[in-house]
């Protein structure tokens, strides 16, 4: 007779199986097992653990080699240390007419395959990008046929309207120049060239003919290690030499070990709560201001970010040149004042919703802390976690009263941020503005006009004037609750030196890395 296994057998099997599965999972988190570097003192081969996949087929235009971090492809312009556009493959640029930009190429730049860089290569590279990302014209203000090689070393860009921040806008990895017709792509001009691409892994070797001299590392392997704890453990075990994006709550323990160190850098990224200006009861400015008076940004940085960040006053990181952090008012914290404002407002005990991306642990914790503070001022709040795939649509549909968002720029130009966030036709507000003339956290016509003026402004000073007024308005009217300016944490083995960090982490320079 066939007999079912006893409960004891099932239990023993389950426990054994569970332990086996756990062991398997720990080894498997992130999809790729980091390979131990050789590690000797003289060995200049390095393994860098990234939270994102360096061989992502979303970047098919670069043969799946993600240009972030890897330094294989270089754009014409790079973001400088203070996020100003600086020449990279271009030596210079100028505005010929209002909408025509001429970029002169640096002399003697060679691709990895020995071909000399020409203006035609730049046009072909931009054309490939336009073909791959059809939405590019809306971002950089140039149509597909607007990139022209006027001679061997000059490229002209025709923008659809005057766009003074065009050079800064293209100082982005999306516009890295590649030799599209190379025999063995991918081929760029950067200090490292591709040796091998495997799923989740890109292996690079130095470009020995690089114009500034051959980089120090004998090889660089970028490895996808998705799970943050596994990334840290791999660093501590010496399986990788550098761990990008060390979780802040683990940073101090990494720093506390003799064999590992961390470096933290203030990014051009800010975390904030976007307050829905068109959904009752946050339509009431006094309630919105009360929500601001209740928040203690300093404590938030200490608790949620473990001190790796700075308390925010405005919607943009103080690293952005036209951000006016120092001139913005601070609200508090003053919960007595907040309670008074709540009492004066039309708030009548409704439950406000805070929308959170369910994959973002920091945002979830932030929401819980806000919930407690708002409870103290008599405002009832519920946290709504939504899957990352549905989060943005839920936000732009205006379903929540508050949404935790984080914004930063990967280029020298952050103009598109202010437009996306606060302009009625910006991507965050456009849907509702077109549908019923509202939006999410766009204060209205006055701010729209200021943003458009700032967009056309030619100097940082002028931009600061217009965008500064926007920041002032959104803070004073409580369209946002500023939370923090974020830092990223890079962990590395103690013997590793020479990593040159950057405000934009994707521009970290590995060329002088040694051990």
């Amino acid at each position, binding site marked *: 007779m066939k007999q079912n296994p006893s*409960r004891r057998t099932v239990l023993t099997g389950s426990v054994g199986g569970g332990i086996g599965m756990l062991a398997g999972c720990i080894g498997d988190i992130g999809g790729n097992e980091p390979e131990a570097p050789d590690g000797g003192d003289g060995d200049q081969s390095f393994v860098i653990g990234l939270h994102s996949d360096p061989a992502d087929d979303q970047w098919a235009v670069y043969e799946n080699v993600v240009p972030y971090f890897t330094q294989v492809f270089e754009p014409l312009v790079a973001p400088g240390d203070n996020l100003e556009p600086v020449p990279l493959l271009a030596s210079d640029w100028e505005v010929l007419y209002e909408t025509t930009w001429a970029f002169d190429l640096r002399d003697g730049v060679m691709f990895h395959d020995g071909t000399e860089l020409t203006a035609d290569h730049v046009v072909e590279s931009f054309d490939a990008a336009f073909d791959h990302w059809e939405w590019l014209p809306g971002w950089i203000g140039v149509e597909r046929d607007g990139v022209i090689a006027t001679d061997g070393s000059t490229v002209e860009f025709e923008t659809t309207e005057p766009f003074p921040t065009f050079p800064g806008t293209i100082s982005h990895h999306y516009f890295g120049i590649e030799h599209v017709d190379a025999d063995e792509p991918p081929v760029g001009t950067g200090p490292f060239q591709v040796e091998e691409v495997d799923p989740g892994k890109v292996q690079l070797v130095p470009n020995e003919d690089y114009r500034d001299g051959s980089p120090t590392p004998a090889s660089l392997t970028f490895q996808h290690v998705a799970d943050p*704890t596994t990334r840290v453990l791999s660093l501590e075990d010496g399986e990788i030499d550098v761990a990008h994006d060390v979780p802040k709550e683990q940073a101090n323990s990494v720093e506390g070990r003799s064999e590992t160190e961390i470096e933290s850098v203030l990014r051009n990224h800010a975390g904030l709560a976007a307050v829905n200006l068109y959904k009752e009861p946050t339509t009431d400015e006094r309630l919105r201001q009360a929500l601001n008076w209740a928040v203690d940004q300093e404590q938030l940085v200490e608790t949620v970010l473990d001190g790796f960040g700075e308390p925010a006053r405005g919607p943009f990181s103080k690293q952005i040149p036209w951000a006016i952090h120092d001139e913005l008012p601070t609200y508090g914290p003053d919960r007595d004042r907040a309670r008074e404002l709540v009492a004066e407002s039309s708030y009548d005990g409704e439950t406000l919703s805070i929308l959170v991306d369910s994959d973002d642990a920091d945002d979830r914790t932030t929401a819980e*802390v806000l919930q407690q503070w708002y409870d103290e001022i008599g405002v009832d709040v519920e946290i709504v*976690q939504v899957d990352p795939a549905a989060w943005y649509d839920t936000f732009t549909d205006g379903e929540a009263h508050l949404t935790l968002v984080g914004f930063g720029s990967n280029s020298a130009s952050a103009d598109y941020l202010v437009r996306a966030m606060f302009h009625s036709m910006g991507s965050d507000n456009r849907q509702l503005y077109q549908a019923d003339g509202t939006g999410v956290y766009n204060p209205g016509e006055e701010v729209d006009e200021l943003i458009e003026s700032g967009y056309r402004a030619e100097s940082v000073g002028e931009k600061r004037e217009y965008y500064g007024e926007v920041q002032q308005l959104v803070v004073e009217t409580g369209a946002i609750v500023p939370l923090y300016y974020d830092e990223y944490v890079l962990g590395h083995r103690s013997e590793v030196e020479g990593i040159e960090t950057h405000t934009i982490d994707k521009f970290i320079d590995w060329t002088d890395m040694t051990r």
Partner: protein
Amino acid sequence: MSTVDEIEQTTPWERGVATLLTVWRELRSNPLALAGAIIVAVLGVVAILGPALISQDPTAQQLGYRLQSPSLAHPFGTDHLGRDVLTRIVYGARYSLGIALAVTGIRVFLGTVVGLIAGYVGGFIDEALMRLVDIQLAFPGLILALVVAGVLGPSLRNVMIALAIVGWTTYARVVRSEVLSVREREYVAAARLVGIPTHRLLTRHLLPSVVNPVLVIATLNLGTVVLATAGLSFIGLGAQPPTPEWGTMLAEGRAYLRRAWWIVNAPGIAIMLTVLGFNLLGDGLRDALDPTQQTRVEEV
């Protein structure tokens, strides 16, 4: 006295007492089952009386006391927001056990009704209902629960609905097979002949015969429902912060695993003990009430 009369004259109370005596004898002779019963009893007491005995608010944050290791003031330590982990575990027991009982209750009700109707009526109705059961069993239970909870949106109530929807089929099958075997017995036929109304036939003659296997499955099921609820909350589909549900606590503490092990270990052990308790008890009940070992462990 005829068999029908004997059964008619046996009260539910008497049958219940007889079942309890059988269970008690089994528990006394089976230490593992007894251990399971004790675990379940302790958890039950904690869930019912615990919150009344603890003065702290499970959601009250004390940011100045975050990540405190276990001490006399906080026997299970504090979490990343300075909340007392023991308090949250105690309140969490109420959520976990409450949901497990509610979900299992709904499953038992649905499955029993469907199984009784299918087994007693037979014919086309039986075919239709059993094909419905087959279709549902063709989907992996947890995946189906994930889909249902995902479509309904994240909340504990929706998790309960999702788990109840996917788990009733086992009861329907067991009840149907019991009814099919019992309805052909002479005393049931005799009861029909003497004109006992259908509803009385179902409740007095057929239903009692399915109580034991259903009770065994339900006990085993309680553990899996606790586990599934915690799993769905862990991935954000169940309880929402700051609800002190064990799966949510695991999810929140995961990032601090290396720095504050107690945040995840406490709810982890609580879940493990609960599942273990229900499984051991269910095993004992099966030995006592279903010696032919017909019931199987539910997957979800």
